[in-house]
């Protein structure tokens, strides 16, 4: 008895010591590492998150998802020309290497991000020219008025022109060309932290940049960051529980209570910018993997409505997600422009009405269909599909579930070779137009690249393309509402829920969850400081 108490005290003491020692060093773990440090080579969450500590964009999103000036202090459309955005640049900013930040660097970085090997170029297609303006400003010229251009720049990092030229990093890393650029493993940003060392997939160490312009504006409580990817979720949780890391992302929902209930640890939560939904192949004349000959049951709107009603979103939230989701009736999360409470309300889960609709549609005995589902992409993705299989069977629809890794699932959507599929979607621009462009517009070479539903409505396409040049924001919002009304009444997609983000932290750290899952360490506060 005495012995156990001693051991207990010893371990508590150890835990306290670990807590105190790590007050200024943040040991941070998540499931995956940044793929590269080249800021324009990959458009991917963990890569952007790492680069957000080192580099800065002109604008970024705060914890509420609102735009905030980073390297720009002011941004507005030119009074003379609606096709020009003017960004006023922040004064007195220096790069880690000591170079001064100026308009040249912005022009260089945007042009670099527009080059063919850049993964960021699709967000910049409307920009025809970037030029230095009067005073300390930069002008972005677009091919037509583009009211939402600033929203496309929140992950667009600014590099130093001179540094890139000196080190042969002008070109974006061309993976397929077999190139290895200097910028993939070396950095020179204006951000709050600078790179100390990096071993890909093992450990990345960052240190506070003493000449950071925002030193007095942000808490800057963390002096040093040690980032480690830990792939196995049980190990990641164990590392947090044992005090080996201070901050962990991507916690499995089944372990949240355990973490929150542990001494010295907390779980903080916020809705994520990612909606999970099902897509239906409405465009095909006949489906590949169904038992209805000669016609496509999913082309019938009543069938789609019946399916939408049969999905019990509350049950999925409670049982599959353990409360960690927000059921939704629309495929965008609440902070996206165009979202309304009314659109978000899912249909009542009414099995009788669903059966009624099925009968009216001419399928009183139901039909069978195949559901394609990823099993390593979204939180509990396969379990969501399994739950829905059961729910749809009550409405008479026999669903054969085919779940596979994301690397095999996403090609089905890219090639439109699926009848019924699960997909998750985030909206980095926080505007509905983005969703329309990729998921609603008819599939073509440029737009509609994720629209695997086969849905094509030329009138709606025209409305969607018109959005990009509407300068009157009220008029534009009305147009967005109109498009949503059409999309909702067509029931192309069956929304399930918005994912909820969970970050596990030691008690000594205070911060808020960012909806894009991009923690910015400069906002972190510690209780000891």
């Amino acid at each position: 008895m005495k012995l156990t108490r001693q051991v207990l005290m010893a371990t508590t003491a150890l835990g306290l010591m670990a807590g105190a020692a790590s007050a200024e060093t943040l040991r941070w773990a998540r499931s995956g590492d940044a793929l590269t440090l080249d800021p324009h080579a990959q458009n991917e969450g963990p890569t952007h998150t790492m680069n957000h500590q080192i580099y800065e964009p002109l604008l970024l999103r705060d914890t509420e998802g609102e735009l905030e000036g980073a390297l720009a202090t002011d941004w507005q459309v030119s009074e003379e020309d609606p096709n020009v955005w003017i960004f006023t640049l922040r004064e007195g900013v220096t790069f880690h290497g000591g170079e001064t930040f100026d308009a040249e660097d912005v022009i260089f970085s945007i042009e670099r991000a527009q080059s063919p090997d850049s993964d960021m170029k699709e967000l910049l297609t409307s920009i025809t020219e970037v030029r230095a303006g009067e005073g300390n400003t930069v002008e972005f010229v677009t091919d037509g008025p583009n009211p939402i251009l600033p929203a496309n720049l929140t992950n667009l990092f600014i590099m130093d022109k001179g540094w890139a030229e000196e080190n042969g990093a002008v070109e974006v890393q061309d993976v397929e060309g077999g190139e290895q650029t200097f910028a993939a493993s070396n950095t020179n940003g204006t951000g709050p932290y600078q790179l100390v060392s990096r071993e890909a997939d093992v450990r990345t160490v960052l240190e506070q940049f003493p000449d950071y312009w925002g030193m007095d504006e942000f808490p800057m409580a963390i002096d040093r960051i040690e980032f480690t990817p830990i792939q196995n979720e049980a190990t990641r949780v164990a590392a947090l529980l044992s005090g080996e890391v201070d901050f962990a992302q991507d916690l499995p929902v089944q372990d949240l209570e355990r973490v929150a209930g542990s001494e010295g640890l907390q779980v903080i939560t916020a809705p994520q910018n990612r909606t999970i939904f099902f897509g239906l192949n409405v465009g095909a004349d006949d489906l590949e993997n169904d038992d209805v000959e000669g016609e496509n049951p999913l082309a019938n709107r009543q069938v789609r409505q019946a399916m939408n009603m049969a999905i019990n979103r509350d049950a999925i939230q409670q049982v599959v997600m353990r409360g960690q989701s927000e059921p939704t009736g629309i495929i965008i999360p609440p902070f996206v422009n165009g979202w309304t409470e009314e659109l978000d309300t899912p249909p009542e889960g009414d099995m009788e009405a669903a059966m009624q609709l099925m009968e009216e549609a001419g399928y009183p005995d139901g039909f069978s269909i195949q559901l394609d589902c990823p099993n390593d992409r979204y939180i509990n993705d396969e379990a969501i599909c399994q739950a829905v299989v059961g729910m749809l069977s009550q409405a008479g629809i026999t669903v054969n579930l085919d779940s596979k890794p994301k690397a095999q699932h996403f090609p089905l959507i890219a090639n439109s070779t699926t009848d019924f599929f699960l997909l998750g979607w985030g909206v980095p621009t926080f505007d509905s137009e983005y969703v329309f462009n990729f998921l609603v517009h008819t599939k073509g070479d440029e737009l509609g690249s994720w629209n695997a539903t086969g849905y094509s409505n030329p009138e709606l396409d025209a409305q969607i393309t018109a959005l990009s040049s509407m300068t009157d924001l009220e008029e534009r919002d009305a147009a967005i509402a109109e498009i949503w009304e059409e999309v909702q009444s067509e029931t192309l997609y069956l929304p399930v829920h918005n994912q909820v983000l969970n970050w596990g932290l030691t008690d000594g750290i205070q911060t808020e969850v960012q909806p894009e899952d991009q923690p910015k360490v400069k906002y972190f506060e510690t209780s000891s400081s």
Partner: protein
Amino acid sequence: MLAFILRRLFQSIIVLLIVGFVAFSMFTFVGDPIDNMLGQERTQADIARLREQLGLDQPFFVQYWNFLGNAIQGNFGISYRQGRPVSEILLERAPATLELAAVSAFFAMLLGISLGVFTAIRRNGMASNVIMTLSLIGVSLPTFLIGILLIYVFSVELNWLPSFGRGAVVDLGWWTTGFLTTSGLQALILPAITLGLYQMTLIMRLVRSEMLEVLRQEYIRFARARGLRERAVNFRHALKNTLVPVITVTGLQLGAIIAFAIITETVFQWPGVGLLFINAIQFVDIPVMAAYLMLISVMFVSINLIVDLLYFAIDPRLRVGKGRGH
């Protein structure tokens, strides 16, 4: 002798070619790297362009042929995931796996042989029975479960050992080692036990049964009758004669330890080639998968070759001409 080696070498090359062929025919089923390489905003045109650039639009045997052509010149391509030469990444990751495998193998041999001898000598003792029963658990529990269990007990509950990673490593220029730091050595303990446990129980059971067999032989009885001391009988005469099959099996198991470190490395976030391979599969990083599979098959083929040659050296019957015909 020379003809034998040449024949074996020729066979080895055929095996390697077949492994590569099968691997490349499988890659189509692993999935498509394109969506991992391009972001969410990719267009259909981007997909088509990248597919052509990577040569993914060609039939798999053409891709295989191109891989072979480059591999012969020592060029294994560029990782789709990391954008760095595959050979560089493999060299960077190999020390972690090799150190882990070496420690596991050492641990498995040491404990396996001593426990095997112990349980053979004290055949009906209480301790022997307990060890034998426990060893059954070691054989039947899956590796990842053992790993998670060890992490739970020694990292989360007791806070004694780290749950992930390699600790601090010392960079020797061409090799990174965890042997020279305390945290590096601590980090080795749990993964090494996890990886070596199965091999240990295997060796232990093998030594025990061989030992029991040998102890029944007449020369052991004669040795005892001669009044030799028990220790001399057990270790100088009995154990020595059990070691030949044990060494063969252990040699072959060493290959298995390296190849099957994948699971242990994933559980402990051990930065070796196994973890690299798992990442490559998830990303459909074809150059890394191809190079890893070829590397592992080269390793197995060479271990087999060495074992064959050792037999040749040990067993004189193999050396006599084939012409005698029996």
